[in-house]
C-alpha cells in the first residue's frame, strides 16, 4: 500500500548489500544453467535475463518467509512468463524454500519443479503459470483482494516483453488502473527477443517484439506509472524496485532493459537460446563464464 509519503527517498543501497545480491544473481544463473543442462530441456535465455531482478526480489525486496511459504501477509509474486520457471526455482531454492539439490529434478516426472510453475505442487508459488498473459490478471486479483481484506501486501508480477503481445495483459492493465491498485507492480523483462520473433533486419534475421519506447508508452497510456531501469545493474534494479513500493495511486510498471541469455557470452542476444538445449562443451564454457569452472571430470569444482 502507499505510504502516502511522497517526499521520502528510498535509502541508497550500500556496497555490501549490492555485492550480496550480485552474488545471489550469479548463483541463480549457475544453478539454472546446471539444472537445464541436467534436464536436457527447459529454457535458458529468459531465466538468464530475469536473474538479477529475481535476486533482488527474493533476497531483498519481497516480504516473504521461506520457512512459512503460506504466510498470509507475505508479498505475492507471480512469474507470468512461466517458461522462465527454472530461474524462479533457483532463486527460491537459494533463498531457502527447498534444497538446492532439488533443482536437478527440474522437468522430471513427479518433480515439484514442473516445466512451468504449478502452485499445487510447490509451496511458495503464489500462482501457476505457463499460458502467457494470465499472471497479471491473477496478480491484480491479489492486489484487489489485499485491499478488500485489509492486508498491507504488494502483488508483484513479472512478464516477458513478448508476452505483452497477449491481449489479456492489456485487459488487466486497463482494469488495474481503474481500481487505482498502487499495490500492484508489473515488471517487464524487456530482453527484446521472443521465442522466434518477427522477421526483419535485426540479429539472426529477427527484430524485437517492440520498437524502442513502445512498452513504456503503452503502459503509461493505460494509466500506469512507468519506471525504467537497466535490469542487470544491481543498484539500479534495487532502486527501481524500492521506488515501485512507493505507491502513488497508480499501479506501477517497471520496464527492465535486459539482455536475453545474460551472463553467458554465446547466448546473449540470440533468440534461439530461448529453448535450445545446451551441449556438454557449451555447458563447460557457461559454467566457467559464470564463475563456476568445471573440474576435468565434468563435476562442478
Amino acid at each position: 500500500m502507499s505510504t502516502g509519503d511522497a517526499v521520502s527517498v528510498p535509502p541508497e543501497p550500500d556496497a555490501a548489500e549490492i555485492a550480496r545480491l550480485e552474488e545471489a544473481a550469479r548463483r541463480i544463473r549457475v544453478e539454472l544453467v546446471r539444472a537445464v543442462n541436467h534436464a536436457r530441456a527447459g529454457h535458458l535465455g529468459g531465466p538468464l535475463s530475469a536473474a538479477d531482478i529475481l535476486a533482488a526480489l527474493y533476497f531483498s525486496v519481497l516480504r516473504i518467509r521461506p520457512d512459512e511459504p503460506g504466510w498470509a501477509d507475505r508479498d505475492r509474486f507471480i512469474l507470468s512468463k512461466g517458461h522462465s520457471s527454472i530461474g524462479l526455482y533457483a532463486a527460491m531454492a537459494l533463498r531457502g524454500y527447498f534444497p538446492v539439490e532439488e533443482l536437478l529434478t527440474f522437468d522430471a516426472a513427479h518433480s515439484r519443479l514442473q516445466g512451468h510453475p504449478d502452485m499445487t505442487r510447490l509451496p511458495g508459488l503464489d500462482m501457476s503459470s505457463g499460458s502467457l498473459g494470465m499472471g497479471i490478471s491473477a496478480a491484480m486479483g491479489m492486489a484487489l483482494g489485499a485491499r478488500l481484506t485489509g492486508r498491507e501486501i504488494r502483488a508483484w508480477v513479472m512478464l516477458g516483453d513478448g508476452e505483452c503481445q497477449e491481449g489479456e495483459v492489456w485487459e488487466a492493465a486497463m482494469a488495474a488502473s481503474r481500481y487505482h491498485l498502487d499495490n500492484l507492480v508489473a515488471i517487464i523483462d524487456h530482453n527484446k527477443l521472443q521465442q522466434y520473433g518477427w522477421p526483419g533486419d535485426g540479429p539472426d534475421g529477427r527484430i524485437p517484439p517492440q520498437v524502442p519506447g513502445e512498452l513504456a508508452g503503452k503502459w503509461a497510456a493505460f494509466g500506469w506509472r512507468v519506471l525504467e531501469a537497466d535490469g542487470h545493474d544491481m543498484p539500479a534494479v534495487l532502486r527501481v524496485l524500492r521506488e515501485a513500493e512507493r505507491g502513488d495511486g497508480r499501479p506501477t510498471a517497471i520496464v527492465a532493459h535486459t539482455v536475453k541469455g545474460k551472463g553467458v557470452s554465446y547466448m546473449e542476444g540470440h533468440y534461439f537460446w530461448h529453448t535450445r538445449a545446451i551441449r556438454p562443451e557449451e555447458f563447460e564454457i557457461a559454467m566457467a563464464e559464470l564463475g563456476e569452472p568445471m573440474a576435468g571430470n565434468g563435476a562442478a569444482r
Partner: protein
Amino acid sequence: MTLPMGRAMREIFGETVAALADEDPRIVMLDADVASSTRADIFEKAHPDRYLQMGIAEQNMMGVAAGLATMGLIPFVSTFVSFAVVRPLDQVRVLIAQTGANVKITPGYAGMFTGQTGMSHIIVDDLAIMRVMPGMVTVAPADDVEADLALRWAASYQGPCYVRIVRDATQRLFDSSYRFAFGKAVVVREGRDVTLMATGTQTPRVVDAAELLAARGVDAHVLHVPTIKPLDTEAIVAAAERTGRVVTVEEHTVLGGLGGAVAEVLGEHRPTQLNRIGLQDTYVQSGPNDELLDIYGLSAARVAEQVLAILGRA
C-alpha cells in the same frame, strides 16, 4: 396439466448471492458489464463494496477471480454463458481448474432463452466443455427453487464449480421441501415403460412430456440430473434398469452433454438402448422462446412426439 411457471432464475441468482454475502464477508461478485442483464445488479445494490466491475474483459476477469480466491475471498463470476465458457476458457483451465481456485463460475443466459439474441449468444455446448475439464464440476438447476439451493451449495463447496443460470422465467419443478444434493440425480416421476433423463430447465418440460405420453399409454420414468459432473452413475444405472430403455433430453447439443455422459456410463456399466433428444449438432437462431422450443424439438409436445417415434408408437 402442465407445471406452473416459477420465477426467473437470474432474479434468484442476484438475490441468493446477495443473501449469501450478508452472511459471508468473503463473497464478492465479478461482472463483465452485464449486471443489469444477469441481475448481478441486485448484488451490487446490497453490497456495493463487494461488486467488482471488470469491464468487458472476460479473460482478465477469470484471472482476477483466481487471484482473489488465493486471498481467501469467494468470487462469483457473472457474465453470459457465451462469454464465460469459451472466450476465457484457457484462463478457466489454467488459473482456476488447474489450481483448484475457489471460484464460482455462475453465468446467466444459459440455453436458448437469451432474449432473442441469436447464435453468438446461445451456447449449445457449455455442459460438454465444462464437464470434460479436469478439476471442474458442472451443475444445471431445473428451476428457481433448485437454482437457489445450488448457489447456496456452490458457496459452501471448496473449489471451482460451474453453475449455469437461465435468463427467463421457466417452469417450476420443485416445491420448498426439495433438497438439492450435489452429485445426485433425482427421480421426479415414477414409470415403467421408458426412462427419460433430463437436466437443467429441460426437466420440467420432460415431466410435462411424460404426462402427454401417459395419455398415449406410455408410462415414463423421469430422472432429473442436475449435476452433470460428477455424474450419479448409480442412479443412472438404476433408472436404466428400471425400464431397459433410455432417452436423454437436453437443451444442449446431444454431443458430449447429458446424452454423451449417460452414454459413457451406460456403455461401461449397463449397456442399454439409448436415444438422445437435443440440439443435433447445430447452432440456434434467435426467436421467441416457445418458438425455439418447437423448432429445436424441446417443447413438451415435441419431446413426447419424438419419444413415441423412438418407441415405435407414433
